[in-house]
């Protein structure tokens, strides 16, 4: 069942990213989204739903959270493509994939980031990281970030915060080799990201490293694909890289030859995977606070006269729709409705969280192919008792 879902998801993804058959002109009604490349699969999901409600989405990946998502929020710039030098992807129910150019330059409607805006402080090209008063920050699905190694059974399966601190903060910066932690002692095999990466920003804060000091320049990769390629080609026990978990989800049934390490955070007694085991996809340890390295996607949107435009409001509303939750679950991200903890700053402490419409059962069904045995199906609230409610076909607590 799980395999068929992955194959189906892969097929859908292939359709969405297939080479374009024709160029299209953007009309004035599209919602232009720009920012974190890690958000692309979610945007695809939302776009498919939005298209059925007469809202077209144009998405442009800038490759980073700070210079895409936050930049658009604090320093909006006009463009004809959404990204200088490249066409954007336009999602239309009748033409799922087509390149798009604007006849009139315009600014992005929504900027997407892996981190809160202030986390981008010090990134060159940003004049400020303070959101203007008319820009809102809507929290989207949670992404887990991992430390990945080559998939060899003889390689370690777990790492601690202290070991990662030394590896990425000292050895990875050509520092004192005596701080090296076996087997990650070779600087050439330690792969990080650039300063403007939300993945790096999240890891730095989680490890207590100065965010402005990533690994040495030669080891900074431009994107997740570069980190994966570096790990794949190194094929050594000493190789390790930082990456978002959804970047190593099998695509078209093919999984990268790397795997995530279980992580033991500062103050934690044991290491945990994002899900309950290395092979599970329930993401329970992210959802309940056992896995500490995660962040919400942030959707920055400008209001005019106190309100979002109806189409922007619709897109924000669809982030937690049943259809979006379904697709998000298959990418190893977690919609906020399935979370049991929350945080209000990057890598900040947890507090309890319960969504108004919790969706844990539906999430696990979509992520794993089967709902937990403890979940009860329903068609309306009457089946769920006085303290329950029917959410996406399952009884959840009110």
């Amino acid at each position: 069942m799980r395999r068929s879902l992955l194959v189906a998801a892969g097929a859908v993804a292939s359709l969405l990213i297939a080479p374009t058959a024709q160029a299209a002109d953007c009309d004035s009604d599209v919602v232009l989204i720009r920012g974190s490349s890690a958000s692309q699969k979610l945007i695809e999901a939302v776009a498919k739903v939005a298209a059925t409600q007469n809202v077209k989405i144009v998405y442009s990946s800038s490759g980073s959270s700070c210079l895409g998502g936050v930049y658009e929020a604090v320093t909006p710039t006009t463009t004809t493509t959404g990204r200088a030098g490249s066409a954007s992807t336009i999602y239309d129910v009748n033409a799922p994939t087509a390149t798009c150019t604007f006849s009139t330059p315009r600014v992005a409607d929504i900027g997407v980031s892996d981190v809160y805006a202030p986390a981008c402080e010090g990134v060159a090209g940003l004049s400020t990281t303070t959101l203007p008063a008319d820009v809102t920050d809507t929290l989207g699905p949670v992404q887990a970030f991992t430390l990945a190694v080559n998939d060899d059974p003889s390689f370690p399966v777990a790492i601690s915060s202290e070991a990662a601190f030394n590896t990425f903060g000292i050895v990875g910066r050509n520092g004192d080799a005596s701080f090296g932690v076996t087997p990650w002692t070779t600087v050439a095999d330690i792969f990080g990201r650039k300063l403007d990466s939300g993945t790096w920003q999240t890891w730095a804060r989680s490890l207590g490293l100065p965010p402005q000091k990533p690994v040495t320049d030669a080891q900074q990769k431009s994107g997740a694909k570069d980190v994966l390629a570096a790990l794949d080609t190194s094929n050594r026990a000493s190789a390790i890289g930082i990456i978002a978990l959804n970047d190593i989800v099998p695509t078209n049934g093919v999984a990268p030859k790397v795997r995530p390490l279980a992580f033991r955070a500062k103050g934690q007694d044991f290491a945990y995977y994002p899900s309950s085991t290395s092979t599970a996809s329930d993401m329970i340890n992210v959802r309940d606070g056992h896995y500490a390295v995660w962040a919400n996607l942030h959707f920055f949107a400008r209001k005019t006269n106190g309100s979002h435009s109806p189409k922007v409001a619709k897109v924000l509303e669809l982030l937690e729709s049943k259809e979006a939750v379904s697709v998000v679950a298959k990418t190893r991200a977690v919609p906020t409705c399935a979370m049991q903890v929350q945080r209000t700053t990057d890598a900040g402490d947890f507090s309890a969280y319960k969504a108004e419409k919790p969706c844990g059962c539906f999430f696990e069904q979509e992520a794993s192919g089967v709902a937990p045995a403890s979940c009860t199906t329903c068609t309306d609230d009457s089946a769920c008792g006085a303290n329950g409610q029917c959410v996406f076909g399952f009884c959840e607590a009110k």
Partner: protein
Amino acid sequence: MFKLKALFLTALLAVSTVALVACDDDGSNKVNGGDTFNPGGGTDAGNEPGNNPDGGSDTTDGGCPNKPAGCFCGTPTTQAQWLNRCTNSAALPVNLTVKPATTADIP
């Protein structure tokens, strides 16, 4: 009068017994009292996931799985309690040799 007193004592004994076997979830004994940065008893980071090294039983009390060893079984109020709550997930010991470092050691 005697019957009434006996009934009262029997009820008191029953309540006490229930209290003794119930889950202690007040939080006082839940977080590993040792050094959380270097917990003892770890064997090797190479343990297979799923081989939970808790050494305890799978008995649940009040919905708390009682694993891994030293886990927190109450309502968390601190970050350490959230991170160390009892869980059915695979909990892996980490036994890497790490030289203590601070931000002053970062070049």
